[in-house]
C-alpha cells in the first residue's frame, strides 16, 4: 500500500550579473560556476536516468534573471571562453602534478569535468541549455515553475501592489516566451509569502507555490495536516508546505549529509593555495585570488590538516546517504499517513546551486536517491504539478507572512546593513507608477524608454542585493547594482518629465540591461 510521495524542488536562481561594458567581470563567474558544477551535471543526470528508465520526478524553478542570462549570446560566448581557460588550467595542473600519483587523478577528474561541460554546452545543447530543460518538462519528468522577475522579496513590497504585479507578470511572460506555455507554479523568492499574495498570483493563472512550515502552521485557520498536505487559500490558490526534517538533512551545515568528512572541501581551493605567478592567468584580473573550482581536499573535520579527497570513498558515502534519505522519508510518511488515514506528501525544496557547487557530490546523491527509490515501492517521487492535480479538496487556510530566512520573517533582507535601499526602491516604484499613469498610451521610442524604466525599477528590487550587503560578499557590487538602476531610472524619469529623450543613451542602456524584452511598463499603472 502506498504511504505517500516526496516532491523534490530545486530553485535555480542567480541575480542578473551581465556586464557587457567590461571584457571580464568577477560576478559573471557565479553563472559559469553554476553551469559547470550544477546545471550541466543535472542535465547529464537526467539523461542517465532516462537511459536507464528510472522513474524520476523533479520540480525546478528557473528564475527569470537566470533564464535571461542562460539565453544570452554574450554570456554564452563568455562561458565558452571561461571553459577554455578552465581546460587550460587542468592541463597545467596535470603537468604540475605529473609525478604526484595521489593528486594527479583529481586533476584528471577536473580535466574530464570541464571537457565534458565544453562538449555538452557547445555541441549537445547548442549553447542554450534551456531547450534541454524544456525537453524534460514536456516529457512530464520535470515540472518547471517561474518566479518573481528579479527575485524581489515580495513581503517587503506588499504596500506597493503595482510592483508585486509587475514582478509576477514579467516572470509569467518570460516563462511563456521560453517554454511555450503558461506556468502553473510560482516559486516565492526566499519563500517570502504574505496573506493576500494569493489574489495576485491567481490573477495571472498561477495555481500553486511553496511556503515554509512556520508560515503554514501560523496560518488561519491552523492547517489540519501540518506540512504533510497542501492548503488552499480562500480563492483556491494552493500552498505546498516545506518539510523541515528532510530539508535539514540536506541543508544543515552541522548535521546534514554535505558535512560528512569524506566529501570534498568547498573552501580549500588552489586559487588561494598556489603562488600568484602560477595561478594568475586563471583567476580574475590575474591578481585577485578567487576560487578556481580545483579543490583536492576532503572536509576531514575541524582542522586545517585536510585529508586528500578520495572520490571512491565519497561515492560510497553518497549511496549510504541516499539510502538514509529514503529510509527517513518512509519513516516520516509512515507516521504521518497513519495519523492522516490517507497518503502524506513531503515537499523538500532546496537551492539548486547547493548541488554540485557547494556540495560537490550533491548531483550524484540525487541520482542515487532516484535509483534507490526502486527499493521503496510504497513511496514515490512526484512533481508539484502532479501533486496539485491529485490534491483534491485541500484544507482551507491562508499561511502567515514568512520566509526561509534566519528569523522566519524579513530580517535577512531588512537590517542595518541594507535598510537604506528601500527608500530608493520605493521611490522608483512611486515614480514608475506616476509615469505609467501619466503616459498610458506611448508608442515607439517613448514606449521603449518607459519599458526601460520598468526594467531598472525591477532590477533595483532583487533580493540578492540586500542579501549580499548583509553577508558582506560582493557588497560593493550589490550596492553598485542598486545605484546604477536608481541613476538610470532617475535619468529616464527626468527625461520624461522634461519631454526630452536621449535616444543614443537609452539605446545603449537597452543593450546593456537587455532583460525582459517583452516587458510592458503599463503593468505599473495604479491599482487603486
Amino acid at each position, binding site marked *: 500500500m502506498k504511504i505517500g510521495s516526496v516532491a523534490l524542488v530545486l530553485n535555480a536562481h542567480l541575480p542578473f550579473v551581465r556586464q557587457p561594458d567590461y571584457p571580464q567581470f568577477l560576478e559573471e563567474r*557565479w553563472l559559469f*560556476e553554476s553551469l559547470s558544477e550544477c546545471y550541466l551535471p543535472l542535465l547529464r543526470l537526467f539523461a542517465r536516468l532516462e537511459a536507464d528508465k528510472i522513474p524520476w520526478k523533479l520540480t525546478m524553478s528557473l528564475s527569470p534573471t537566470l533564464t535571461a542570462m542562460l539565453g544570452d549570446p554574450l554570456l554564452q560566448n563568455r562561458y565558452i571562453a571561461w571553459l577554455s581557460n578552465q581546460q587550460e588550467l587542468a592541463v597545467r595542473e596535470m603537468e604540475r602534478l605529473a609525478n604526484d600519483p595521489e593528486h594527479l587523478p583529481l586533476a584528471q577528474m577536473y580535466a574530464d569535468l570541464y571537457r565534458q561541460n565544453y562538449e555538452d554546452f557547445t555541441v549537445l545543447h547548442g549553447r542554450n541549455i534551456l531547450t534541454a530543460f524544456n525537453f524534460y518538462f514536456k516529457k512530464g519528468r520535470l515540472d518547471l515553475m517561474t518566479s518573481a522577475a528579479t527575485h524581489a522579496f515580495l513581503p517587503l513590497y506588499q504596500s506597493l501592489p503595482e510592483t508585486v504585479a509587475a514582478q509576477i507578470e514579467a516572470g509569467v511572460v518570460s516563462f511563456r516566451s521560453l517554454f511555450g506555455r503558461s506556468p502553473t507554479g510560482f516559486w516565492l523568492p526566499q519563500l517570502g509569502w504574505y496573506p493576500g499574495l494569493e489574489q495576485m498570483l491567481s490573477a495571472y493563472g498561477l495555481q500553486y507555490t511553496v511556503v515554509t512550515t*512556520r508560515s503554514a*502552521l501560523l496560518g488561519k485557520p491552523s492547517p489540519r495536516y501540518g506540512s504533510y498536505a497542501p492548503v488552499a487559500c480562500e480563492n483556491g490558490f494552493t500552498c505546498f508546505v516545506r518539510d523541515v526534517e528532510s530539508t535539514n538533512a540536506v541543508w544543515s*551545515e552541522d548535521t546534514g549529509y554535505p558535512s560528512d568528512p569524506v566529501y570534498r572541501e568547498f573552501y580549500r581551493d588552489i586559487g588561494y593555495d598556489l603562488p600568484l605567478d602560477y595561478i594568475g592567468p586563471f583567476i580574475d584580473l590575474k591578481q585577485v585570488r578567487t576560487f578556481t573550482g580545483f579543490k583536492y581536499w576532503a572536509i576531514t573535520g575541524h582542522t586545517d590538516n585536510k585529508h586528500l579527497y578520495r572520490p571512491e570513498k565519497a561515492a560510497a558515502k553518497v549511496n549510504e546517504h541516499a539510502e538514509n534519505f529514503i529510509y527517513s522519508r518512509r519513516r516520516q510518511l509512515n507516521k504521518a499517513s497513519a495519523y492522516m488515514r490517507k497518503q502524506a506528501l513531503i515537499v523538500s525544496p532546496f537551492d539548486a546551486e547547493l548541488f554540485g557547487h557547494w556540495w560537490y557530490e550533491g548531483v550524484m546523491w540525487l541520482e542515487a536517491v532516484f535509483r534507490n527509490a526502486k527499493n521503496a515501492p510504497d513511496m514515490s517521487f512526484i512533481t508539484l504539478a502532479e501533486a496539485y492535480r491529485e490534491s483534491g479538496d485541500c484544507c482551507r487556510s491562508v499561511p502567515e507572512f514568512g520566509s526561509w530566512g534566519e528569523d522566519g520573517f*524579513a530580517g535577512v533582507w531588512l537590517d542595518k546593513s541594507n*535598510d537604506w535601499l528601500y527608500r530608493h526602491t520605493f521611490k522608483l516604484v512611486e515614480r514608475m507608477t506616476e509615469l505609467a499613469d501619466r503616459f498610458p498610451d506611448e508608442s515607439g521610442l517613448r514606449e521603449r524608454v518607459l519599458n526601460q524604466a520598468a526594467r531598472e525599477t525591477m532590477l533595483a528590487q532583487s533580493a540578492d542585493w540586500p542579501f549580499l550587503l548583509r553577508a558582506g560578499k560582493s557588497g*560593493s557590487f550589490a550596492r553598485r547594482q542598486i545605484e546604477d538602476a536608481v541613476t538610470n531610472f532617475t535619468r529616464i524619469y527626468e527625461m520624461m518629465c522634461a519631454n526630452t529623450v536621449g535616444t543614443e543613451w537609452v539605446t545603449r542602456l537597452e543593450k546593456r540591461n537587455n532583460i525582459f524584452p517583452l516587458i510592458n511598463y503599463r503593468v505599473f499603472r495604479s491599482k487603486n
Partner: protein
Amino acid sequence: MTIDKLNGLSIDALYTLAEKIGLKLPEGLEPVFVIGELIEAFNEDSNDRRMGGNTAVHVEEKKFSGSELDEIDASMEVAACIECRYNETSLHVLVRDPGWAFVFWDIRDDDDERLQVDNNYSGLFLRVIEDPANPDPLQFDVSVGKHDTSWYIHLPEPDTCYSIELCAKAGSRAISLAPAQKVRTPRALGLDLRLGMDEFSTEMAVLSGLETLEPGITSETHSTRIMDEYGA
C-alpha cells in the same frame, strides 16, 4: 575570511573592519592581535547564525563565491553616489517580524523651514497607535532626532494592527507631518498557537517539526561539521 586574507590588509583596514563588526579594540595593537580578534568574532558570528537555524540562507551564500576583494570591500566605507533623500514629506513602514518594524521618512525642505521658525517646535516623534479601529486604542510615542530619517520600532503585540505617524512637537501640540501608515504584525510561534489547535492538528504540527521552530530550541552540533566560510 581567512588569516591569509586578513594578513594582506593594512592595520588601518583591519581596525576599520573591526569597528564595522562592532569590535572595540584598544589602539596600537599589533596586526597579529587584531587578526586574532577578528577571526574569533567571525567564528562566533558564524556559529550564532548556524545555531539560529539559518540553514537555508547560510547555504545560499555559497553560490556567490567571493574573492579577496570582499574583505577589502568590507574594510572600506563606500560613499553613496545617489542622493539619499528626495525632498518630499513622506513616511513608509516595513514590517520585519512579529516584534519590529522599520520606519523611514523624509521632510521637505520648506516643511522643515516652517518648523524651524516655529518657536514652539521642539522635535520629532513617531506616534504608534495599537489597534486603531478600537474606539479607545493604546498608543505610545517614540522621540526621534531632528536629523534622523529612519527608525526601528518595537511593536509589542504580534497579529495586531498598528498605525504609525510622523509628528512634530510644538508646545503641547502634535503636528502631523505625513499621513499615518497602517500595518499588521504577523503571528508568532508560541503557546497560544497550540491552544488554538485541536489534538489532531497539534500532533500533525509536532510531526511537521513545530518543536524545532519554536523559540529556545537549538540544533545539535556535530563533531565533523564542515568549516564555515571564515575558517577555511
